[in-house]
Each structure stands twice: as structure tokens, then as C-alpha cells.
């Protein structure tokens, strides 16, 4: 007869050995510590500010700023408020970030592809570029371009002159600026129509290939359409565009567009520095594609262009895009080094001049950090979505 075992009552664990109780206890301690820390620093900050006679709050944003800014994309002079200086700085940061991202992507892709070139010399030059620029601090590069290169340029009277339209001197780069006249809208319309036709053609091409396997060239006709149609309309409308050329009057140039040397130095340094990282991203992305993919494409009889467009690039982009976005974010954050040479970006204008004048350190640093934080959280949210959407689905 099998022995009947009496069910034992579960062993009562001591409360300090119970994982659940422990976890609640530790988390309670953690919350208490965080709150105590913030209470401590806030309390100190409030007392200290009171002792120094600094009023807290954001009311200072409505006071008159009273200082000039050398470059502003929005209307600004000394009579505007501190709040306005925030936006002036923000737009200047956005300007240098957008231009930098565009140029760094261009240069980075060229160098990255050049590193994989079959031409030994070109590949070596590209890797020398990468190793040189990514191993030198960005701030040093900015200083080099600003103090050693741009400051050594001649004065306005001996400007470097390109075709009497572009002038480069110690005060900056002077470009012709386009003056749009009545009737230019038709050119925009023509451009829009051209884009529409190209889109329709590419959809038709894809359908045709899917249904019949036939295809036709699209790239060259598209480029021709994109250039010729707006040009035709432009000529028909009587060339409604004038160029305002910069001209030497007295001691300085008048008219045209001016790129201040601070912006140039920052842009060149950011472009070279970030391009060297992007080149590595591009190279590793392309190298990540197994050779079998190329061989399979060749076996299917795809042309070189088709292989790149349909097989290599789509797969490489999946590897490239996440670290690429990371580099864009780094570039934007690095643009804050502008403050070292006095380019009026967000940190330089708002967390620099405005902070020094008002003494509202807590509010201003908070607002500045919030801008960068919003940007990077938004970017990583988009990246997470992208990674989920395009992650390799293994079957």
C-alpha cells in the first residue's frame, strides 16, 4: 500500500528573503533617495538665488535684450526681448545643423564608397581622410579653420575674386543672391508638374515590370525632365529672376548674400568631422552585405545598375540608416561648439550672452537642454519605429 504523504505546508520565508518584499523595499528606497536629492538641490538653489537677489521664473523672457546678434534668420535688433534671442539662437542652430547634415552626408558617402574603390590610391586616400579627421578633436578643427585659415584671408580690398560674383575675404564669403520677380511662380509649378510626371512614370514602370517583366530606362529621362521643363517655362516667362551681385563700396561689400566666417568655419569643421564617421558607417554597411548577394544578382542576369538599385542599396540602407541618424544627432549636438568661436547658435546666444546678462542660470540651462533633449528623444523614437518596421524578418 502506497504511503500517504501529508501535504506539507509551504515553508514560510522570512520577509527579508522574499524577493517581492525586497524589490518593493529597494524601489521605495530608490524613490525616496531621488526625491531627497531633488529636494536638497532645489532647496539650496532657491536659497542661494534669494541670497544673490536673482528672481526665479520665466518673466525675464519678456525683458528687452539690448544686445545685437551678428546673424539672425528672423527679424531681430537690440529692442527685442530675451525670449526672442532664444528663437534667434535656435534658428541659427537649425541652419548650421541642416547645412552640415546635407554636406556631411554628401562627403561621407563619397569617401565611404571611395574606401571600397578598387583603385588602391583612391581607397588609401579615403582611409587617410577618415583616420585624420576623426582622431582630432572637433574643437581643434573649428579653431584651425577659424583662426588659422579664415583669419589669414586678405581684407575686403584684396578679396579672392571668383568670376566677379563670389568674393572671399576675412569678413566672410559674399555670394550673389537671387531676386525673385513676378511670374516665377510658373517655374515652381513646372517643377511640381515634372516631379508628378516622374512619380507616375516610376509607378507605371514598376507595374509593367511586375506584370510583364519588361522595363525601360527612367533615370536619364527623369533628370532631363526635371531640368528642361522648368527651364523652358523660365525662358517663356521672360526670365523672371535677377541676381543681386555683391559689390565693393568703400571698405566693405554691399548687396548679395553674406556667409559670416564663423558659420563657414563651423560648417567646414562639422562637415569634415562628421563625414569621416559617416564614411565608416557607409563602408561597414556595404561590407555587411554577403558576397553571395552580388553573385546571385549576377546569376539572375541583372545589370550593374539593377544590382545596386534592387539588391545592394536596399539591404545596405537597413544597416546604414540607424547609425547614420545617430551621426546626424551628434552633428546637431556638436554644433553647440559654435560658442567657442562666437557663431550665434542657441548655446552661444541664449546660454551664453543672455545667461550672463540675466543670471537666470537654472531656467536658461533648463530650456537649452530641453531643446536638445526633445530632438534626441524624437529621433530615437523615429529610429525605434524604423528598426521595427525594417528589421530583417527571418522565416
Amino acid at each position, binding site marked *: 500500500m502506497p504511503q500517504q504523504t501529508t501535504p506539507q505546508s509551504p515553508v514560510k520565508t522570512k520577509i527579508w528573503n522574499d524577493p517581492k518584499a525586497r*524589490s518593493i523595499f*529597494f*524601489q521605495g528606497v*530608490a*524613490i525616496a533617495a*531621488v526625491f531627497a536629492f531633488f529636494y536638497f*538641490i532645489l532647496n*539650496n*538653489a532657491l*536659497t*542661494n*538665488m534669494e*541670497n544673490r537677489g536673482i528672481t526665479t521664473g520665466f518673466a525675464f523672457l519678456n525683458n528687452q535684450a539690448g544686445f545685437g546678434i551678428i546673424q539672425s534668420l528672423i527679424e531681430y535688433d537690440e529692442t527685442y526681448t530675451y525670449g526672442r534671442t532664444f528663437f534667434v539662437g535656435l534658428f541659427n542652430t537649425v541652419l548650421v545643423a541642416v547645412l552640415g547634415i546635407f554636406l556631411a552626408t554628401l562627403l561621407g558617402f563619397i569617401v565611404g564608397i571611395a574606401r571600397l574603390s*578598387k*583603385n*588602391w*590610391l*583612391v581607397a588609401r*586616400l579615403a582611409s587617410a581622410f577618415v*583616420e*585624420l579627421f576623426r*582622431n*582630432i*578633436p*572637433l*574643437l*581643434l578643427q573649428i*579653431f*584651425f579653420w577659424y*583662426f*588659422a585659415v579664415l*583669419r589669414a584671408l586678405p581684407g575686403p580690398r584684396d578679396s579672392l575674386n571668383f568670376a566677379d560674383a563670389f568674393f572671399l575675404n576675412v569678413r566672410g564669403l559674399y555670394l550673389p543672391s537671387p531676386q525673385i520677380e513676378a511670374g516665377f511662380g510658373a517655374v515652381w509649378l513646372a517643377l511640381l508638374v515634372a516631379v508628378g510626371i516622374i512619380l507616375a512614370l516610376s509607378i507605371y514602370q514598376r507595374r509593367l515590370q511586375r506584370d510583364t517583366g519588361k522595363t525601360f530606362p527612367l533615370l536619364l529621362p527623369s533628370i532631363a525632365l526635371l531640368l528642361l521643363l522648368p527651364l523652358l517655362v523660365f525662358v517663356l516667362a521672360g526670365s523672371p529672376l535677377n541676381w543681386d551681385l555683391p559689390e565693393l563700396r568703400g571698405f566693405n561689400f554691399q548687396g548679395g548674400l553674406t556667409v559670416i566666417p564663423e558659420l563657414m568655419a563651423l560648417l567646414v569643421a562639422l562637415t569634415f568631422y562628421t563625414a569621416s564617421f559617416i564614411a565608416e558607417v557607409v563602408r561597414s554597411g556595404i561590407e555587411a552585405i554577403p558576397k553571395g548577394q552580388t553573385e546571385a544578382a549576377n546569376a539572375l542576369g541583372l545589370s550593374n545598375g539593377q544590382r545596386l538599385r534592387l539588391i545592394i542599396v536596399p539591404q545596405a540602407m537597413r544597416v546604414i540608416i540607424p547609425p547614420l541618424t545617430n551621426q546626424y544627432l551628434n552633428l546637431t*549636438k*556638436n554644433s*553647440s*561648439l559654435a*560658442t*567657442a568661436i562666437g557663431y550665434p547658435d542657441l*548655446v552661444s546666444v541664449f*546660454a551664453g550672452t543672455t*545667461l550672463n546678462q540675466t543670471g537666470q*542660470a*537654472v531656467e536658461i*540651462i533648463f530650456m*537649452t*537642454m530641453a531643446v*536638445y*533633449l526633445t*530632438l*534626441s*528623444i524624437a529621433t*530615437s523614437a523615429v529610429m525605434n519605429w524604423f528598426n521595427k518596421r525594417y528589421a530583417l524578418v527571418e522565416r
Partner: protein
Amino acid sequence: MPKFTPLPDLPAPPNTVGIRGWLRSNLFNSPLNSIVTIVAAYIVVQGLWWFIDWGVINANLIGETRADCPVDANGEKSGACWVFVYTRLEQFIYGFYPPDQIWRINIVFIIFALCIGALVFEKTPWKNWIAGFTLLVFPFIAFYLLNGDAFGLTKVDTHKWGGFTLTLVLAVTGIVASLPIGILLALGRRSEMPIIRSICIVYIEFWRGVPLITVLFMASVMLPLFMSAGVETDKLVRALIGIIMFQSAYMAEVVRGGLQAIPKGQYEAAQALGLSYWKTMTFIILPQALKLMIPGIVNTFISLFKDTSLVLIIGLFDLLAIVQSAIVDPEWPQVSVEGYLFVALMFWVFCFGMSRYSQSLERKLSTGHH
């Protein structure tokens, strides 16, 4: 019966072997490539020639003052003025440290170099002990030697620290102090307790989301506000606090990468043996993960090393800042390029060496692990 003897192999076509073959297949394999090669070679030769002409042939190396770099009628120098770097070298390396105390910095450099050398060399015995010494004991030796005020050494105020010494102090302290914080943050981020996990995620994402320069601004203008009234902090300490908080968030991500690379079976085996969480981590997971993390740690060290130059903006005199202030000295006009090249060379040698080391380590680890 005649024995069959094959004819001797014909030599390979001359244009596919040797230098000629190499040139043909790597530089001149198509008309377009040939043109590209010639243009690129021309640019390289021109650039190199210009640089050698400026930096070596026409350069001035020996002398004491700016007058030893003669200028022509237009006020242009004939070539590089290395006299500038040469005469200021001591200041660039040691900052404003009292000259009779410089031996203390040299001792720190020597111990540091010995430690790093022993750790990099593959066959060193007692590697773990040396690593422990470098991370736990050396920082204190270095601090007492540099700061003084103990063991009969005179005190040297931190505002006299500068130059390359300060750059190294910032970078090494930043990395050594952020490693333990980073490990805790990474463990917290992988913890099963939701509140601890959220606190760690918020901390990491916050510091990773803002530029270092705003962190340094914050450390220099906001930190004094956060301290109790009357507590004075040193400028260098404030900068270090900012750098450590910033760096520990990046370090946490490196550690997390290392932890994720450890197979789940290791955790399960440790649990099956009845090890507690902390025992699992210290004896099973972290020793394996730390080895995998070394390349990542070296990479963050490289970026921190470059980023230390930012302390210039809050008024500390690291290598770049000290050279920058020497360049604007009116007694030494037109020497900015020489000064910047010197700084660039210093940074480049260190960063390039470290990145090569981390690459070779990565290759070694990737074959040994799988």
C-alpha cells in the same frame, strides 16, 4: 618506353605579376581609373611636397624667441616656426605647475605608462592584479602626487594644473570614475524592478541627449547654486563632476552591450547553482562581459579624450586651451598653424593608437568567443 614528362609551365604573362601586375590591377585597370590615379597622385605629391617644404626644409627649429624665425619683406615667414612649440613645450605639457615640482608629474606619467604597457602586452603575468592596481590604487597615488598637501609634498592648487597633464587627468579620471557608475546603471537598466529601471533609463537618456558643452555650463554655473550655502567647490572638481555624470551614461550603454552578449544559459546555470543576484553578477556575468566590453570602453575613452578639449570653454587650461592662449600672445605672431598642428599631432597619435588597439582586440575577441 619513354617516360611522360610534361612541358615546363610557361611563365605568367609579365603584366599580371610583380610590380607591373600590381600596378595594372590596382591603379590602371581601366582608362577612367588611370586618369583618377594620375590626378590623385599629382595632388598627393604636390601636397606632400608643399608640406615638407614648409615644415622641414624652410622651417626654423632652433632658437629662443620669435626673432629666430626670420620674416621676408612682406612680413611672411619662410616656413614653419617650430621654435614656438619647442620653447613652450614644457608649458604645453605641464601647464603652470611649479618647475621644481615637475618630477611629481613625471612619476605619475611613468607609473601610468608602465601600467598601460603591462595591460596592453598580452603575456604579462598577474594581469588582474595590475588592472586592479591601475583602477583602484593608481588614482590615489596620482592624486596625492599631483595635489600634494600630504606626505611632505607642497600643495599645488588645481588652477596651476594645465596642458597635456590636465587633459590626461580629465580623461583618465572621467573614465575610471564612470566605469563603476556605468556598471550600476547598466545593471539597473536590465533590472526587473520597474522603478529602478525607469530611474536608470531616464538618467541615461537624459545625459546622452544633451551636448557635453551644456553639461559643462551646467556644472560651472548651476552646480554652485545647488550646493549648500558656503560650500565652495574647485573649478576642476566641478568640471569633473559634469564629465563623470555625462560619461557614465555612455559607459552604461557600453556595459549593457557587453551584458547582452552573454548567453542566457550563463544566467540560468548560475541560478541553478543557487547563486544570488550579486554573486551571479560578480562571479559569472561581469568577468565575462567586462572582457567583451574592453573595445567599447577604449572607444568611449577615445571620444572622451577628444571631448576634454571642451573644458576650454569654462576656463580650464587643457592642452588646446594653453596652446590657444600662447598663439594669441603678441610676442609670437603668425604661429597659429604650428601650434594647432602640434596639438593635432598629440591628440592624433593617442587616438589613432587607441583605435588601432581596440580594433585588434575586437578581432581577437570575435574569433575567441564563438
